[in-house]
Every structure is written in structure tokens, then in C-alpha cells.
């Protein structure tokens, strides 16, 4: 297992490197954002531990650039800031997990193990529809390369519809696939979810078929690759 550690504090870097070595990982270290970005882009790591407060280029920018360049390596973010806007920004930039300083090394190792296991677990191929792409492995979706910010229910809705492209899907069918069996929901709430997803992917990609349900499709002029 090869890990990239991007952290600028020399003491913390030394400690983490030692702990990771002891846990059996091969560790590369970068002390600033630019070096970290370069390494993450060029080397095939199994996971990245990324500090957010970095010299030269901050962690969120590094992460955003990787995700734009389709670097899908799972990333664990380290930060001293534990407010929600930081967490939201981190996850929206494409982080897979988040750890607030100060932390116990054991906690970091446990999170890292879970991260690597999760990313290795799924192997379903990615789906696409017009400019939309959906990657079930990372549970991420994008439109024309721009990452979409979806909650899990929205993601599940989009996933199900993309697996059944071109077919009209009824509300009841969507409810059944979106919620647990013992979770009783009104099929009208589907309308709300469709509305939210439309807001995020563009209004014309999901068509309402009156009385029957919904259908997802590529926009005119988009290739269906």
C-alpha cells in the first residue's frame, strides 16, 4: 500500500510518517501544495493524507485540481479548522474523509484502513448519459466534467435512472428503490427530489412523462458515449 502524506509541519510529518511506516504502508511525503499536487497526479497512490493549510497551494485547491484531472485516489483531509463550512468545502472538493486536529494516530490509521477498503470494494463500471457521468466506485457524478454535489438520496435517484436510461420510470418504482423497505414514504416526495436533481444537473435532462413517470436522456447535440 502506497500512501502520499502532504503536511507542512515537520514534527507532525515525522510522527505520521513513523506511524504509517510501522503500520506497513509505504509513505511519500510532500511539504507543500505544489509538490503534493505533482506527486498525487503522477504517482499511483492507494490513498492520500492531505493537510488543508499548506504553503504555495492550499489543500482544497490541490484536491479540486486532482478531481478535475480525474485523479480518483481516495483522500483523507487533515485540518485544524473544524467548522462546517470547511468540512463542506473539503467534501465538495472531493475528499473521502475528514479528520480534525488534534487527533490520535490510532484514529487516523483506522480511518485510512476504512478508506482503502471502501475504495477497493466497488468495481462497477461508470455510467454515462450525454454529458453526465456517474462513477459508482467513488459514488460521484459529474456533468460535462463539473462535479455534481448530490446527497445520497439524490445520487441513488440519478444512479437508478441512469441504469435505466431511455425507459419511463414510475414514481412508485423510484420510491421502492430509493428507500428501505420499512421506510414508508409518500410517492409525492419524488417530485421534490426530481426538482432538486434538475436544479443540479440542468432542467431538461429529466423528462416528465405525464401520468407515467420520468425519463432521463441526453440533451440534443450531446453524444451518448
Amino acid at each position: 500500500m502506497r500512501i502520499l502524506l502532504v503536511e507542512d509541519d515537520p514534527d507532525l510529518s515525522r510522527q505520521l510518517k513513523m506511524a504509517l511506516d510501522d503500520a506497513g504502508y509505504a509513505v511519500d511525503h510532500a511539504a507543500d501544495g505544489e509538490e503534493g499536487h505533482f506527486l498525487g497526479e503522477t504517482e499511483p497512490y492507494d490513498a492520500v493524507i492531505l493537510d488543508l493549510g499548506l504553503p504555495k497551494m492550499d489543500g482544497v485547491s490541490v484536491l479540486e485540481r486532482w478531481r478535475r484531472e480525474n485523479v480518483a485516489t481516495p483522500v483523507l483531509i487533515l485540518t485544524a479548522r473544524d467548522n462546517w463550512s470547511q468540512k463542506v468545502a473539503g467534501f465538495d472538493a472531493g475528499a473521502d474523509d475528514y479528520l480534525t486536529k488534534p487527533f490520535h494516530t490510532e484514529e487516523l490509521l483506522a480511518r485510512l484502513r476504512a478508506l482503502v477498503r471502501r475504495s477497493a470494494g466497488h468495481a462497477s463500471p461508470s455510467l454515462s448519459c450525454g454529458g453526465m457521468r456517474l462513477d459508482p466506485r467513488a459514488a460521484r457524478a459529474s456533468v460535462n466534467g463539473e462535479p455534481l454535489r448530490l446527497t445520497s438520496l439524490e445520487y441513488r435517484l440519478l444512479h437508478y435512472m441512469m441504469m435505466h436510461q431511455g425507459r419511463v420510470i414510475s414514481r412508485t418504482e423510484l420510491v421502492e428503490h430509493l428507500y428501505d423497505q420499512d421506510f414508508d414514504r409518500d410517492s409525492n416526495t419524488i417530485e421534490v427530489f426530481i426538482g432538486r436533481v434538475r436544479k443540479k444537473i440542468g432542467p431538461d435532462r429529466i423528462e416528465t412523462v405525464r401520468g407515467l413517470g420520468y425519463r432521463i436522456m441526453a440533451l440534443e447535440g450531446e453524444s451518448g458515449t
Partner: protein
Amino acid sequence: MSLTAQTRRALFPSLGRSSLVMRLVMLAAIWSVAMLVAAGFGLNELFRRAAVDRFEAGLEESIKGLFAETTVADGQVYAPPMTDARAFRPFSGFYWEIAQLGPGARVSSVVKSRSLWDSNMAPPPSVIAAARRRPGETIFFDMVDPLGKPLHAGAQLGSIPGRTAPLLFLAAENRESIDAATARFVVIIVGSLVILGAGLIAAVYLQVRIGLQPLFRLRREVAQVRQGKSDRLTGAYPAELAPLAGELNALVAHNQDVVERQRTHVGNLAHALKTPLSVMLTEARQQPGALSDIVERQAEAMRAHVEHHLRRARAAARSQTLGERTDVEDVLDELARTLERIFQSKSVSIDWTAPDGLCFRGEKQDFQEIAGNVMENAGKWCRRNIRVSAQELDPQWFSITVDDDGPGLPAERRGEVLKRGARLDESAPGSGLGLAIVDELARAYGGGLTLEDSPLGGLRVVLRLPRAEL
């Protein structure tokens, strides 16, 4: 003449506190009423004078006619034949008389009109005296005729050829016509002046309302800033108010700036401490011993202090902020996404609903903190499902209900969970439910937090928070 403050207060007790409009209108009204009353009296007097003058000119004419054509033959005085028919009808309201003066103020009639019948005009002594002093001049006076009607009369002393003692020529006419005309005029003038006065006050009121319009607009805009509907004054104001609006904007901006700077300072300090703390903790753990135990315990305590004071500083800064509003839907969406990632090993699913356009009146960061901590707590304890629902309660408040399907919390332990926050620095970070912090924050916004049983089986947290009007 200047009024002292005291007399002014005594005269207009309500002026100091009442509105500017009332103040201006009241002053204008008092002034106009005084002017109009004076004008009324003046006009009335002018009219009366003119009427009396005309009347007296008539009387004088009669006296002159009488004087010019009176003849004396053999010591006998002959009056001219009067053309005015009223002179022959008894008590007709028109009278004349030629009298001779005796010693002192005695007067005896020589010839008189038939209309006087058997009475005499008997001018008062003061008139006789005045006529004596100024012969040839007509002296006017008021009297009553035998029927008691008011008369206006003139008297003139003149000498007739053939008679050595001067004679007093008198003429009188009923003055009811002048009195009636004057009374009619008073009615008309009072009526018109009242209408004019009312019109003037209405005009002043309108003028003041329109003139002060920018002031009312300023007040509305300031209220909007306070309610969080806008973050600065945007209207164009006249030269007198523009500097005030500018200063207010500068004040709002300064306020936001100070809050922001303070927050950044405290944040920087607190966060700068976190990396060294992390290093110390890790180092201490790797070399077990008495020293490392102390270091670890103290480092943990320092961390708790940092967290606590970070929040305290933010809460203190927050109560001063103006004009902030936060879209509830946006924040819930962000938090749901983020928390699902944080708890992805559990495959937590967050189902949230919020009315379109619902806004929290306050800072985004605070709302994230409030909703985020409650939802994170639900994430920690739930099995798989979290349901979040925002609802409008009334124009000022909304609620957020967070349900989870976890083990829940027995009713008797609920108070304890919230109380722990009061002694936040004594409780280890990460322990407890983090709900105490939320409770504290919600209270800072005048809202609150209650714990209930959830229909999903776990705990239900209901937040009550202030709503920004649209």
C-alpha cells in the same frame, strides 16, 4: 421675545417626544390660526367702518339739506318740505328735528318730523357740547327711537339768517341695516377663514409628509438592515440625509468587518495551537510514562479550552451582527451531502425537506454549526436513517426537526445532556452529544432546542430558530 425651554415645554408638552411631522404641522397650525383670527378681526372692522361711513354720509346729506333750506320768517322757523316719505310716517325709522339750545345742556324742539310724533330726539349732553365746540361739523351718535329700535344720528349746529341763536339740526335713521350687513359679513368671513385655515394646515401636512419622505425611507431601510433583508442602505437620499445614510452604511460595514476580523483572529490563534497539540499528544503516547501521562492530560485539557473559547468568542461576536440571512435549503443540502460522506461506512441516508426560500436570520456559519451538530449527533447514533424537516412556524420563527432511527435517549437523561454544556470546559471534548453547544447557540439567537421521542424509534431534536422575512 424668546421662549425659554421651560415655557416651551409648558406650552407644548408633547412636542419634544412626538413626531417631526406633528411638530411641524402643530407649529404651522398655531401660526396660521393666529394670523387668520387677526385677519378676520381686521377685515370685519374695515367692512363695518365702510358701512358706517356710507350711512353717515347719507345722514350728513339729510342734515345739510335741512340746514340749507330752513328759513326764518317773523322769528318762526320753517323747515323745508322733506321728500323722504318716511319723515311723515310715525316711527318709520327716519327722523329729523330742528332744536334750539337753552342754557346748559337744555334742548327744546323747534320743528320736527312727523315721524317723531310726540317725542323728541333729545341728544345726550356730550353730543350737544361737541356740536357747540365745532359748529358746522356733524357729530354722530347712537340712540333709540320711541319704539326702542336702534338709531344712528347726526347733529350739527348752524346759524340761520334772521335768527341770532344758532339752531341744532338733527337727523337719525334706523341702523339695523348696517348691523345686519355686518353680521352677514362676519358669517361669510368666518366661514371662508375656517376653510382657508383648514386648507393651509392640510397643505402644510402634505408638504411635511412629502418633504420628510426620504426620512421615512431611511427608517424603512434601516429596519430592513436590522431584519437581515439587506446588508446596506441602497436608496438615493437628498443632500441633508446622504451623509447620514453614508455613515450608517459605514457603521454596518465596520461592524461586519470587526466581527469578521475578531473571528479570524480568534480562529487563527486557536487553529495555530492545534497542530502543536497534535504533535505533543502523539509524541507523549509513543513514550509511555509519568511525564507523558501529564503531557497527554494537559494537552487534552488545552484542546478543550481552545474549543470552548473559540465558540465563546464567536458567540460574543455574533450578537452584534446585522443584516445576515442564510438560505436554509442550501445549508441542509450541503450538510446532508457532507454528513453522508462522514458516515459513509454506515451508509447513512439523510432525507431532508425544507420550504422554498426559507431563510435563517443570522450568520451562515452559525446556522451550519447549529444544524450540522444536531445532524452529526443523529448520524452518530442512527442505524441508517436520518430525517430532517424544516417548517415555517410563523412570520418570525421556523423549526427544524431532526429524527433518527437509533437507540434514542430515555426522558430522564435528556436534561443531563443539555446541562453538560453549562460546564463545557469540565467535560471532555467529543463526549456527550454536542447538543449543549447547539442549545447555547440557538439560545443566543433567541430560539431553543427540545428533545423528544422520534417516530423513527430514536431521538427527535426540535430546533426553534429566527426566520428572516422575504
